[in-house]
C-alpha cells in the first residue's frame, strides 16, 4: 500500500526530528511535570501543556508560571514532536497549550484551524513577524551554530562564516576527511528543514554540500550525537547544531567552542498555540499571556538558553543580544505559509535527491533513493 508506505516514512522522519530535539534529555528524567495547585480551597483550575521542549528548558518557565498563579494545577507533558503531533491530532480536546519547535507541523495545525486566536491586546507589544493570525506565537530565538573542537586550531583559523567554512574544507580536504559532522537531511527533520532554508538562501549552499561530500562528513540525526562526538574528539567541527542545546553543552566542555556564522545564521523558533478545543481556555489564555509577557520572557532569557524575543527584554539571552552579537546575520525561518512547503512530499523528495546528488558528486556513486 503506497499510502501506508508514505505514512510510515513520514512517521520515521518525524521520529528522527523529535529525537534530535530531545537529545539532551537524560533518559532517566521524567517526561512529565506536575505542579499541584497551592490553594486547594479555591476553585480547582488546571492547565494541560503538550510540548516538545526539554525539561531543563521548560522547568524554570513552568515554575515561574506556577509561582505567579499558584492556584492553577499545571500538568506538563514533554513528547517528541512526532508523538506530540499525533497525540494532539488524535485528541485535540485534551491539550490546552501546544508547544513545539517543529515549525512546519505547528504551522500546519494552525493553518487547519486547530488554534484559537489570542486577543489583540495580549499581542499588542509582540513583533508582527513573531505571530501568525495571533493564533501561533513564536516565543524563542534559537540560532543554528557551528561548534568546533580546539584541535581544529592546529590546522587553521576556525571559520567565522559559511564562505570561510567552504574555503577551509577545500584547503584542508585531506586533513578534515571524516572530521566533520552535520545533520542528515534524509533522516532528520531538523536537518531537512535547515537544508531547505539554506538552499533557498544561496546557490553556493550546494557547493558547501559538495565540499562536505568530498570530506566524507558524518551525517548524524541529532545535535546530541554530534556534540558528543565533538567532546570525544572524533569530530573537529560540527555544522548546523541547534544553538540553544549546544550553548549549554559548550559551557560544560572547555575544549569546545561555539560559532554563530556572521554571514547568515538560521534561527529556529518554538511555536506555541492555544488549542481551539482547549478544555481550560481561561488558564490556557493566562499561560499564553505569561509566555509573551515581559516576566515570562525574562525567565526564558535568564534561566534558559532558548532566547527571549520580547522587545523590552534586551539583556543576555535575548534575541536582541543575539542579533547584536551576530551583526545582523540572523535569519529566522520565514514564519509564514512558506513553512507548509516543507511538508510537501514531492518537495521533500526533490530536495533530498538534489542534496544526495551534490553530496555524492565526488564519489560518483549516487545511490538511488529508496
Amino acid at each position, binding site marked *: 500500500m503506497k499510502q501506508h508506505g508514505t505514512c510510515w516514512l513520514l512517521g520515521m522522519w518525524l521520529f528522527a526530528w523529535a529525537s534530535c530535539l530531545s537529545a539532551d534529555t537524560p533518559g532517566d528524567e521524567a517526561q512529565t511535570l506536575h505542579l499541584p495547585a497551592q490553594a486547594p480551597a479555591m476553585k480547582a483550575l488546571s492547565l494541560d501543556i503538550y510540548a516538545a521542549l526539554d525539561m531543563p528548558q521548560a522547568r524554570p518557565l513552568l515554575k515561574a508560571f506556577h509561582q505567579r498563579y499558584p492556584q492553577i494545577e499545571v500538568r506538563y507533558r514533554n513528547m517528541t514532536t512526532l508523538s506530540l503531533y499525533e497525540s494532539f491530532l488524535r485528541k485535540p480536546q485534551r491539550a490546552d497549550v501546544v508547544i513545539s519547535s517543529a515549525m512546519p507541523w505547528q504551522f500546519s495545525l494552525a*493553518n*487547519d*484551524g486547530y488554534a484559537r486566536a489570542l486577543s489583540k491586546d495580549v499581542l499588542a507589544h509582540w513583533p508582527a513577524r513573531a505571530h501568525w493570525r495571533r493564533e501561533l506565537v513564536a516565543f524563542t530565538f534559537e540560532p543554528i551554530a557551528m561548534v568546533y573542537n580546539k584541535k581544529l586550531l592546529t590546522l587553521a583559523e576556525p571559520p567565522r562564516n559559511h564562505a570561510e567554512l567552504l574555503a577551509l574544507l577545500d584547503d584542508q580536504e585531506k586533513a578534515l576527511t571524516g572530521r566533520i559532522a552535520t545533520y542528515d537531511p534524509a533522516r532528520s527533520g531538523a536537518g531537512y528543514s535547515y537544508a531547505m532554508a539554506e538552499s533557498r538562501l544561496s546557490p553556493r549552499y550546494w557547493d558547501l554540500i559538495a565540499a562536505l561530500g568530498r570530506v566524507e562528513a558524518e551525517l548524524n540525526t541529532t545535535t546530541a550525537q554530534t556534540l558528543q562526538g565533538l567532546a570525544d574528539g572524533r569530530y573537529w567541527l560540527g555544522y548546523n547544531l541547534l544553538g540553544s542545546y549546544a550553548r549549554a553543552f559548550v559551557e560544560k566542555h572547555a575544549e569546545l567552542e561555539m560559532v554563530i556564522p556572521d554571514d547568515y545564521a538560521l534561527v529556529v523558533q518554538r511555536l506555541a498555540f492555544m488549542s481551539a478545543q482547549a478544555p481550560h481556555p481561561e488558564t490556557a489564555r493566562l499561560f499564553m499571556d505569561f509566555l509573551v509577557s515581559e516576566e515570562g520572557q525574562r525567565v526564558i532569557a535568564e534561566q534558559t538558553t532558548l532566547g527571549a524575543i520580547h522587545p523590552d527584554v534586551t539583556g543576555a539571552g535575548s534575541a536582541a543580544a543575539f542579533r547584536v552579537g551576530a551583526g545582523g546575520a540572523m535569519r529566522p525561518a520565514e514564519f*509564514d*505559509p512558506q513553512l507548509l*512547503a516543507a*511538508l*510537501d512530499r*514531492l518537495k521533500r523528495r526533490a530536495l533530498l535527491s538534489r542534496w544526495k546528488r551534490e553530496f555524492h558528486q565526488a564519489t560518483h556513486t549516487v545511490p538511488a533513493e529508496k
Partner: protein
Amino acid sequence: MTPARSLYGRLLIWLSLPLLALGSLLLFQAWRDAQTAADRAFDRLLQAATLSIAEQVQWQDGQLWLDLPPTALKMLSGKAQERVFYTLIDDKGRYITGNARLPAHPDGRNRQDTDTLLYRNEQWRGMAVREGIRRTRLEGWQNHKRFEVRVAHTREGRKRLATRLWWSSFAAILGMGVLSIALLLLAVCAALAPLTRLRHAIRARNPRSLAPVALTLPRELAELREVINQLLARMRRVRANQERFIGDASHQLRTPLAGISARAELALRQTSPEQWYNALATIHVTSERTSRLATQLLSLTRLDNPEYSPAPVRVDLNTHIHQALLEQWPAFRQAEIDLGVDCADAPVMVDATPWQLDEALNNLLDNARRYGASRVTLGSCREPPALWIEDNGAGIAPEQRLMVLRPFHRARDDGHGSGLGLAIVDSIARNHGARLELSNGENGCGLCITLTFINEVA
C-alpha cells in the same frame, strides 16, 4: 408633522422617500460592487499562485512531479494572513500532493485543451474559502498530460477590503444624501414662497371688497387665483342679485302701500259711509295682497338661506297632494275653475322637507288658479317619482320659461300675482335636488309643470 396637515411636510416626505429608496438601492449596489472589487483584487492571488505552482509541475519517473514553490503559498496567504490550501490532481482525478484534499469544481465540462481558471466560494471544513482551480496540461516534449491545480484561501482579507470599500461608498452616499436633503429643503421653501405671497395678499384685502385678486403667480397658483376670482365674481353677481331683489321687493311693497295710503287719504276727504266702505274694501284687498307678498318674500328668503338645511324625512307625495287639494278647493270653486287629481295608485315615497313640499304645492296651485283658465289637474307618478300640475291656460312661451323662475318676473303684467310663486318652487326644487320642468300642456296648449325627484326610490 402629519403629511395631510402640512404641504411642506408632504413635499418633504414624498421627495425624501424616493431619495431614501434610491439611497438604499445605491448602498446595496455599492456593497455588491465592493465585493466584486475585492474578489477581483484577491482572485489575482489565486491566479498567480496556481500559475506559479502549475509552472513547476513536470513529468518525472512516470508520474506527475511538483517542486512546490514556497512563495506561491506565501503569495496566496497575502497580507491578510489567510489560511492556505493546495492540491495537485492528475488527469484521472487522483491526488498527487497537497496539504489538503480540496474539492473539485462541479463544472467538469471544461475539458478542452486551453488553460482554464475557475473560481468559487464555498464552505469547506467549517471555513469560508475561495477556491481557485487551474486546469492545464504539461508542456513537455512528448507528454501532454492534463492536470489540475486547486488552491484555496480563507476570505477574511476580501471581507475586510469589501467592508472598507463599502464604508467609503457609504460615506460618499451619505454625504450626497445630506446635501440633497439640504437642497430639497431650500427648493421646497422656494417653491412654496408664492403660496405665502398669495396668503398674505388675501389676508391684506379689505374684507368688504369683492374685487378680483391681481397678483403675478406661477401657473398652478394662477389657476387657484382664477378660481378665487371666479368665486369673487359669482359673489359679486349674487350681491347684485340680492340688491336688485331688495330693490324689487321694496318697490313691490311700496306700490300697494302707496295705493292704500292714497285710497285712505281720498276716503278721508269724503263723508259718505258708502264711499268709506268701498275704500275700506279696496284697502282690504290691497293689504291682503301685500301681506301675501310679504309672506312669500319671507319664505323665499328662508329657502335661499344656505345656513338652513333641515333634514329630509320620508313622505308620501300623494298624501301631501290630497292635503293641498283640500286647502285650495274652496278658492278654486269660487273662481269656478275645475280642479282635478290624477295620482299614482301606490304611495310615491320621496325624501323631502314636508313644509317646503306643501309650500311648493300651494304656490303651484295658486299660480294655476291665477293663470290656468278653466281646468287644472294635479297628479303624481312613480317612475321616476314626480308631481305635476297641468292647466289649459295661455301657457308660457319656451323662451320665457327660464325667466319666469326669477323673482318678480311675471309672464303677464296683470297686477294680480306677486311674481314670486315659481321662484319659490324653483328654490324648493333646488333644495331637494329635484328637477323643475316647464312644458306645454296636453294638446300643445296650456302649461305643465313637472317636479321630478331624481334618485329617489318609490
